[in-house]
C-alpha cells in the first residue's frame, strides 16, 4: 500500500479578521479542522506609549493611559495615578478615592459586557452582543455625565479626580444597577446556559492553575483556572478593603476548571460583584475635596516604584523610574492581555479552528493593551 501523506495547511487568521479583537494575526498550522499550533503575531497596534511617556510631563501622560486599554480606560488612569502618587508621596482625598472606585468598577462592568457579548458573537450569536452593548450604553452615558467622554475618559488625576460627581449621578447609577442585575439573568437565559454555547465552551482550551501562574496570567483568566487571586483583596489598595464582595473563581461547573466556559462565567459573576461594590461605595462616599493641590510643575523625587492594580484584564502594573525631573525617566506598563496572549501558543495545540476563536474570546485580550 502506498504511503498516504497529508500536507499541513497554514491558515492566516488576521490581521484583519472578524474575531481578532483589534488587529493581530495568528499563523494557524492545521491538519484539516484540528490545529497543530496557532502562533500569535502581535504588534500591529504598537504606539510606543512607553517611549512617549519619557517625553511628557507626569500629568500630561494621563490621556495616553486611556489608550493602553480603551475598554478599561478608567482602570488604566487609576493605576498610573497611584504609581506617581506613591513615588511623589501625594495624599489622595478620601472622596476622590471613593469616586475612583465607583468609576473604575462601572468601567469594569462596561468592559466585561463587551467581553461576554463578544463571546457570543465569536460563536455566531449576534443578538447577545447587541443586548450587552445596550446595557453598556447606559454606562457610557453615565461616564459621559461624569467626565465628558464615553471611551477615553482621562478622568482620574494625580492626586484625585478631575471633577466631582455630577448632580443626580448616584441616583442614576443605582437606577441602572437595579435594572442591570435582572438583565444579567436574562442574558444568562439567552446565552450562558444555552446548550450549544455550553458545548462550545466547556472543556475547551483548559488552562491549568500551574500553567496560569507560570505564564503570568492575571485577573479573570487566572481566577478561572481556580486560583483565588484578586489584587483588590490580596494586595488591597484604595478603599477596597472597606467593601464586602466575593471573588468568583472557576469551578468547572460545566466541564473542567480553567476552560473557556469558566472564564466566561467568571466575568458574568464579576459584573454582579462589581455592582455590589458600586452600591456600597455610593452609600459611603464622604464629603470633601476631590483633588489635592499640586505644584504647577510636578517634580517627582528620584526613585522607582512598581504599582499594580486589578484592572479589568487583571494585573495592570506601572513601573516608573524617576530621575527627579518632571518627566518619567522610564515607564514600563505590564498588561494582562500581553501575558494572556503568550499562553495561546501552548493552549491552542490540538484544538479545532473554531475553538481558537472561543479561546481568544474567553481570554478577553484587547490588542492595544498587548502592543501598547
Amino acid at each position, binding site marked *: 500500500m502506498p504511503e498516504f501523506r497529508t500536507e499541513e495547511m497554514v491558515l492566516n487568521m488576521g490581521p484583519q479578521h472578524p474575531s481578532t479583537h483589534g488587529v493581530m494575526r495568528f499563523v494557524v498550522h492545521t491538519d484539516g479542522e484540528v490545529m497543530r499550533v496557532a502562533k500569535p503575531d502581535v504588534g500591529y497596534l504598537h504606539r510606543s506609549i512607553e517611549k512617549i511617556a519619557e517625553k*511628557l510631563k507626569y*500629568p*500630561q*501622560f*494621563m*490621556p*495616553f493611559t*486611556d489608550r493602553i486599554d480603551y475598554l478599561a480606560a478608567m482602570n488604566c488612569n487609576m493605576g498610573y495615578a497611584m504609581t506617581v502618587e506613591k513615588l511623589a508621596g501625594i495624599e489622595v482625598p478620601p472622596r476622590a478615592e471613593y469616586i475612583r472606585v465607583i468609576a473604575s468598577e462601572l468601567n469594569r462592568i462596561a468592559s466585561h459586557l463587551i467581553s461576554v457579548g463578544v463571546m457570543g458573537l465569536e460563536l455566531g450569536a449576534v*443578538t447577545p452582543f447587541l443586548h450587552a452593548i*445596550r446595557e453598556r*450604553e447606559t454606562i457610557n*452615558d453615565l461616564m*459621559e*455625565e*461624569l*467626565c*465628558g*467622554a464615553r471611551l*477615553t475618559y*482621562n478622568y482620574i488625576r494625580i492626586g484625585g479626580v*478631575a*471633577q466631582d460627581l*455630577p448632580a443626580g449621578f448616584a441616583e442614576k447609577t443605582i437606577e441602572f444597577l437595579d435594572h442591570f442585575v435582572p438583565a444579567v439573568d*436574562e442574558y444568562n*437565559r*439567552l*446565552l450562558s*446556559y*444555552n*446548550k*450549544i454555547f*455550553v458545548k462550545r465552551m466547556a472543556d475547551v482550551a483548559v488552562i491549568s492553575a500551574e500553567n496560569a501562574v507560570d505564564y503570568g496570567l492575571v485577573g479573570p483568566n487566572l481566577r478561572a483556572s481556580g486560583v483565588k487571586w484578586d489584587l483588590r483583596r490580596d494586595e488591597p489598595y484604595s478603599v477596597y478593603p472597606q467593601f464586602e464582595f466575593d471573588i468568583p473563581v472557576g469551578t468547572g461547573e460545566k466541564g473542567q476548571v480553567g476552560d473557556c466556559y469558566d472564564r466566561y462565567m467568571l466575568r458574568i459573576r464579576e459584573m454582579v460583584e462589581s455592582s455590589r461594590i458600586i452600591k456600597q461605595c455610593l452609600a459611603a462616599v464622604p464629603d470633601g475635596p476631590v483633588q489635592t493641590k499640586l505644584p504647577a510643575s510636578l517634580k517627582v523625587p528620584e526613585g522607582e516604584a512598581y504599582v499594580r492594580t486589578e484592572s479589568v484584564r487583571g494585573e495592570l502594573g506601572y513601573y516608573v523610574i524617576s530621575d527627579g525631573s518632571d518627566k518619567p525617566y522610564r515607564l514600563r506598563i505590564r498588561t494582562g492581555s500581553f501575558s494572556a496572549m503568550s499562553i495561546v501558543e501552548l493552549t491552542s495545540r490540538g484544538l479545532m479552528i473554531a475553538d481558537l476563536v472561543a479561546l481568544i474570546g474567553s481570554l478577553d485580550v484587547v490588542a492595544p493593551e498587548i502592543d501598547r
Partner: protein
Amino acid sequence: MRRYFLNIWEAISTIAKGMGVTLVHFTPARKSITIQYPDRTPVPVVETLPERSRGMLTFDPDVCDACSMCAMTCPIDCISIDRERVEGAKGFVLKRFDIDMAKCMYCGLCTEACPVKPKGLEHTREFEGATDRMEDLILEFIDEKKHRELVEKALKKAEKLKAAQNEE
C-alpha cells in the same frame, strides 16, 4: 443512556428559554433603544449631551490673558500660540491662536489649565466636526483684525491703569 436523553432535554429546554428572550424582544413589550442619528431625532443630539461633554474646543480671545498655559499643558502640542509684547501695555497680546482639531484628542487638560475665569478655552458639546479637508480642522481664532483689536484693548487697559495709578 440517561445522559443521552438528558442532552436532548437540555438542548430543547435551554434553546426554548433563549428563544423566549428573543421573542419578548420581538414583541412591542421592548422598545428599540437606538436613535436615528442624525436626522430623525426629536432634538439634535448635541443638545442631549451632558454639560461636561468634551467636544470641539472653543476659544474666547477677549477673556484670554495670553499666558499660554494651555499650549504648555497640551500633551500633543495641538495648540499653537504666537504672542507679542506691545509697547506701552502690560503682558502679552495674542497674535495667533490656532488649535489643530485633527490632532486634538479631547483630553480636556488644556481647559483645566486655563487660569482665567470664566475660562478662555473650553470644550463645547459640538462633536460633528467632519470635513473633507484636513486644513479645515485647524481652527484659527485670531486674524489680523482681531489682533489689532486686542492690541488697542491692551493699550486702553494700560492707559486706564496708568490713570488709576496717577489718581492715587
